[in-house]
């Protein structure tokens, strides 16, 4: 015998020190933040509390550009396009959504960030990245 059972439980995750800074900057300034590790001499996107390489916590918060480079993407039919994008000024890529059609994109393409009109301090305040019309396709 099979029986289907459902659950509905709310959760609330604290974004913490680095995450709260990141989400507040998206909301207030349409600004993507990164973290610079002086030990590894590398700027990480998005902002975070520790360096994944050296484990260090002495990271400097930096403002990244709203322009970005497409590092990889995938097309999930019915769910849209997901991407790894490297914001200008960062050495690493972050996961987000791509806005457009699959045929609009190629690895290395220039992108620009699109922000929601109403923002609430959430990763979706950044709606995603679209092709940058200012750059050659």
């Amino acid at each position, binding site marked *: 015998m099979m029986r289907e*059972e459902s*659950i509905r*439980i709310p*959760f*609330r995750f*604290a974004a913490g*020190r680095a995450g709260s800074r990141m989400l507040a900057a998206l909301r207030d300034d349409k600004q993507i933040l990164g973290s610079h590790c002086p030990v590894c001499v590398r700027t990480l996107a998005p902002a975070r*509390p520790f360096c*994944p390489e050296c484990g260090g916590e002495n990271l400097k918060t930096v403002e990244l550009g709203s322009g970005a480079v497409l590092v990889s993407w995938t097309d999930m039919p019915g769910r849209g396009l997901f991407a790894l994008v490297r914001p200008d000024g960062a050495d690493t890529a972050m996961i987000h959504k791509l806005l457009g059609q699959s045929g609009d994109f190629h690895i290395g393409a220039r992108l620009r960030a699109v922000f929601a009109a109403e923002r609430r301090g959430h990763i979706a305040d950044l709606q995603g990245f679209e092709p940058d019309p200012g750059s050659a396709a």
Partner: protein
Amino acid sequence: MRPAAIIGTGQTDHGRCRDDVSQPELIREAANRALADADISPADVDAVVLANMEMFEGRALPELWVGEGAFANRKPCLKVATGGTSGTSSCIAGFHQAASGLFDVVLVIGFEKHSEGHTQTGMALTDPFWDRGVASGALGNFALSISQYMAERGVTREQAARVAVKSRRNAAMNPHAHLKDANATIEDVMSSRVLAHPVRLMDMCPQSDGAAAIVIASAEHAAKLCSRPAWIKAAATRHEQPYIGDIDRRLLTMRTLRDAAQSVYARTGIREPLKQLDVAEIYEPVTYAELAWYEVLGFCAEGEAGRLIEDGITEMGGELPVNPSGGVLCANPVGATGVIRVAEAAAQILRRAGAHQIDGARTALATGYGVYAWADALILGSTP
């Protein structure tokens, strides 16, 4: 069994809601303190064991996200999840790993952020064909057991309240504790709100946010890295049948804890625990359980637990201080709670327990309790 020892411990400042930090940041707080206590650097850690009850925070495989808080990036890292015993079982897992010869130094970290989810609800996701529809989380389960304990052993509400008073007074000396009150009275406990008859608010452990860590080293490294390590002399785990109704008179018999304790006593030559143990950090989720465990752990005969607390035997200055830290009643981040028991027992042996240090502590007991009746027991000592 190859020996291993605890060379450092670290805890966060536990509280009702640590929303100032994310889960990885919370863990890092405990990890940093443990590494500083052991005087080692992250690079010295060979492997990490994490403990957490992921359904309490709505996560799957939580180590994937939080691991780097524990310095686990590019290192061997495993997660242990066995309900309330997650913490003590992860310490035992770290012990076995350090003793296996595979690793020299193992960092064990337990954590929970109850404020991010609904613990009682998570605990009630039991067998959907049996008791999920009538589950009421830990609270109802404890309350049921207590009615049996009171009926058979005659333990009183006042004796239970004494446990809460002792706990809060001890916690006042512990900088990490969540609930502390040096002036709590028996009347305070007995007049606090009823949660589930006969359990009142101050009888019950809180739901805390927090993390705790210990550093375990293999024998060779422990001797090199620490002048006075807390040696893990014996450890035992016992699990039970799956349903709450399977176990007769659970609080009274608690055959898993009794058997685990007898096993570690036998392996360390302990015949009279009250005399031979210097300190105990036991997993008492509710005041009545501490009394029941006195009997199960052999600190006194059956029915004598009330006298033990009334005579102050388990107070800080008594013959066997129980939970100088304030215990689970004063801080309960579930995945960390068992680690805290072991960390506090180790800190006593390491002579680093601060204001709640028991002078001359050389032999310590730590226990874990989980789900309906799972149990862990560990004996720590100042010599291998």
